[in-house]
């Protein structure tokens, strides 16, 4: 059976980001892309599940950057059996989460998986909507902020993080969609020689789509967050610190 992992490339924030002269986009020539960290965890979790059950992992992504191959080859080198990229005319667009989900659904349906995993969030999906949207469009149950999972007796048991260190284990009927916060173990290292071998021997399947409707939110202006003021360290003994705190809160009209 099949487990689908949905992966996305995002700008590498280690590198300096530059805003394009248009003011509504990043300077794409200066951007380099990395796999969304949570998607990497989703892949690891999927591989761990598949190692236990003998399922086949298929990595799926929308190639909005023209560089998705690299990420998919890495997924293959790590143990995914197939990799599929959705291509189309996305040039210069930061796809909205909803548009992305709509593009992905036909591919997922075609693969007929019993489980879909993706990262719980991404820099362009900070509110974590991809997994829930997919689940709504597919009509399958869903859990997010998942930190470990297990397939047994025809269901998936997903442990999700709540708050204050509390976790909850859900049992979902298959097929289901999981938004992964962290895999059970750190994503594995894949030796470069294996990636290179995969690049020579394996191939990435393509699904050409004709995008319709609004793909991306329209941007008015892109800018770096304004420098916030410096933090002040409170020093002294407890009562001095307390006095200063009260003073600060008063000054802001909070007391």
């Amino acid at each position, binding site marked *: 059976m099949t487990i689908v992992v949905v992966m996305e490339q995002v700008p*590498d924030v*280690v*590198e*300096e980001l530059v805003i394009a002269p248009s003011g509504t986009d990043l300077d794409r020539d200066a951007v380099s892309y*990395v796999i969304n960290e949570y998607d990497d965890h989703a892949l690891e979790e999927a591989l761990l599940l598949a190692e236990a059950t003998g399922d086949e992992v298929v990595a799926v992504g929308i190639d909005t950057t023209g560089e998705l191959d690299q990420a998919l080859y890495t997924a293959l080198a*790590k143990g995914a059996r197939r990799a599929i990229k959705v291509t189309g005319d996305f040039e210069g667009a930061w796809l909205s989460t909803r548009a992305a989900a709509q593009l992905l659904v036909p591919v997922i349906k075609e693969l007929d998986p019993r489980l879909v995993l993706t990262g719980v969030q991404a820099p362009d999906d900070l509110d974590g909507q991809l997994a829930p949207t997919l689940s709504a469009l597919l009509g399958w149950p869903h859990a997010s902020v998942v930190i470990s999972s297990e397939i047994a007796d025809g269901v998936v048991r997903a442990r999700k993080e709540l708050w204050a260190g509390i976790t909850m284990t859900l049992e979902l009927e298959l097929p289901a969609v999981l938004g992964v916060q962290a895999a059970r*173990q*750190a994503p*594995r*290292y*894949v*030796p*470069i*020689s*294996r*990636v*290179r071998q995969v690049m020579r021997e394996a191939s990435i399947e393509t699904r050409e789509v004709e995008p319709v409707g609004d793909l991306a939110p329209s941007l008015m202006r892109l800018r770096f967050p304004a420098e916030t003021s410096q933090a002040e360290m409170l020093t002294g003994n407890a009562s001095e610190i307390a006095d200063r705190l009260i003073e600060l809160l008063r000054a802001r009209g909070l007391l």
Partner: protein
Amino acid sequence: MLTTSERIAFVLIALASLLLTAHGVSRIVRAIARGQGRPTWGLFFRRVIPVSLDILLQRPIFRTRPLVSALHAGVFFAFVFYGLVNILDLAEGFTGFSTLHRGGIAALYNLIADLLSVAALVGMVGLLVRRFGLRPFRFNERVFLLPSVRFGISRDSAIVGGFILLHVGSRWVGQAVRIAESERADWSQPTASLVAALFHGWSEAALTTASHVTWWLALGLILAFLPYFPYSKHIHLFMAPLNLILREERPLGQLEPPTSSNGALGAERLEQLRWYQLLDGYACIMCNRCQDVCPAHGTGRALSPAALEINKRYYLNRNLGAFAGGATSPPLLEIATTKEAVWSCTTCAACVRICPVGNRPMLDLIDIRRALVNQGDPLDPNLQAALESLARYGNSFGKPARQRARWTKELPFPIKDARKEPVEYLWFVGDFASFDPRMQENTKIVAQLFHAAELDFGILYEDERNTGNDVRRVGEEGLFEMLVEQNLAALEKAQFRAIVTTDPHSYNALRNEYPAYGFQVPVYHYTELLADLLERGRLRVQQPLTAAVTYHDPCYLGRYNRITAAPRRILHALGLELREMPRHGENTYCCGAGGGRIWMDSGGQERPSEQRIREAVALGEDLRYFVVACPKDMAMYSDAVKTTGYEAQLTVIDVARLVAMAVGINGLERESISVTTEAP
């Protein structure tokens, strides 16, 4: 002379013994032949004479332990000479020919045999007393040993020692019996003649019996021992010279690419090791010299290079028939060593250099790492992060390549971009010197010194990548190759006469590893250039320095590449008083950073660098500077001097900074240069 029945018995026993021995030897040869690759037999003819000379002079073993080596030499010389003695004794047994009471060459022969017998007996007793009385061979409790090894080492030593004692002793006493039979002392056999007095008054029949018994004990014993010989450590007699003679001609700093069997890289099992790594096991004499110098073992880690070799041999001996016949061995991590041990190797090569029989335990450890990395075995998280960063950004700091040359912005002059204009020296700066904020200060000083000396130099700016020296030693061959390709592409864009490096690890890779990829350019370490610039007056000492200092040789500079003089020439030129630590030059002690260890967690255990600081402190309270010539050392020892609490007494300093203090450089106040090791 033997009786006829004795002669027939001897011949029959000899035949049986030789057959059994040949069987054992052939199994060992077939076992070794299961290793990867084949020896270059051409080496044999070229090396057999020089190596034999070395061995006759016992050079490899005299590198350490002078007293023990002298005892060994006594046994060894006797053993060699006993080859002749045994032949003549055999002739005597069968034909009655005797050298007794003859003059000339026979007397000389007798004299040598007599004296060497005593040397061998004394040497052997000494060695046995040492092994069983003093018990110097201990492994720390974390070292993995096969169950058969624990008991086996002592048993093997006892059998071999007992054999030599009995064999030589019987022959010696036998000579005494013959002297007693002849009823007069033989001046050419002084010690045996003394012993002969013991047999004074024995009947003729008793003496004849004694003569037969001692002959059988001396020569018959060989026949009894022979079949055991291939399985004993005594086989080092053949395997050690063979190992030394057939050793690949390859710089210590150059690794062979991993072996590949059915797509699996590296060595998971015995048969995936190279032939010479299997031979190593048989050449090993279990002397533990390698373990004594191993920084990992010395700081209580589970690694013992000796145990690795010994385990290999014992496993093979116990399973020889099956293995020689082609059976798959269990994983090396079940029979030879442990994962913890494998990852604690710093690739300092101390074991390789010290081993008297030419073994290279370090290579096994690297090959096991290669297998682990390629099987996707979980890595130390910090190591994994470093490798991922190296793959993505070309440095282990997780910094974008564009920031590599950021330190140059703080210099009062521009540094040439070697990709854009030709330079005489291309300065390969290295990761630590470029990115680590603590090291950047030194890097700037080196730049200023080069500038002050009007050296024509430039750098590769953001195109430089980590050379991959330690990546290769971690076992990530694919990443190493990728880094090599990237660096070669960058180097191709530049025009230069020679390379100068700050980092000994980069030095090693560029000098020893890159030639295998077609890169042949002279490579210098910055200490070599600085020494030269000082001696040729292009850097002038304005104010000599007066402190007492010690210098730490980096493994990849001092041991791997034998660059030990240049840094000392610098210290001398600056007027400093150099005090050597006991372990220096090629015998230097590792700081613990090599082989990727710098990226791994030390697990809170003592570090080799901390032991090293104590070694330096023992040189005197007035020792002011602990001088280093490697950015990684700077990092390791700046930490160690703090954790050991000697920060106030001893300052870790880069040799370039001392040069700057003595020559003075524009725009830098003396005080600002001499600010200890703290980064501003």
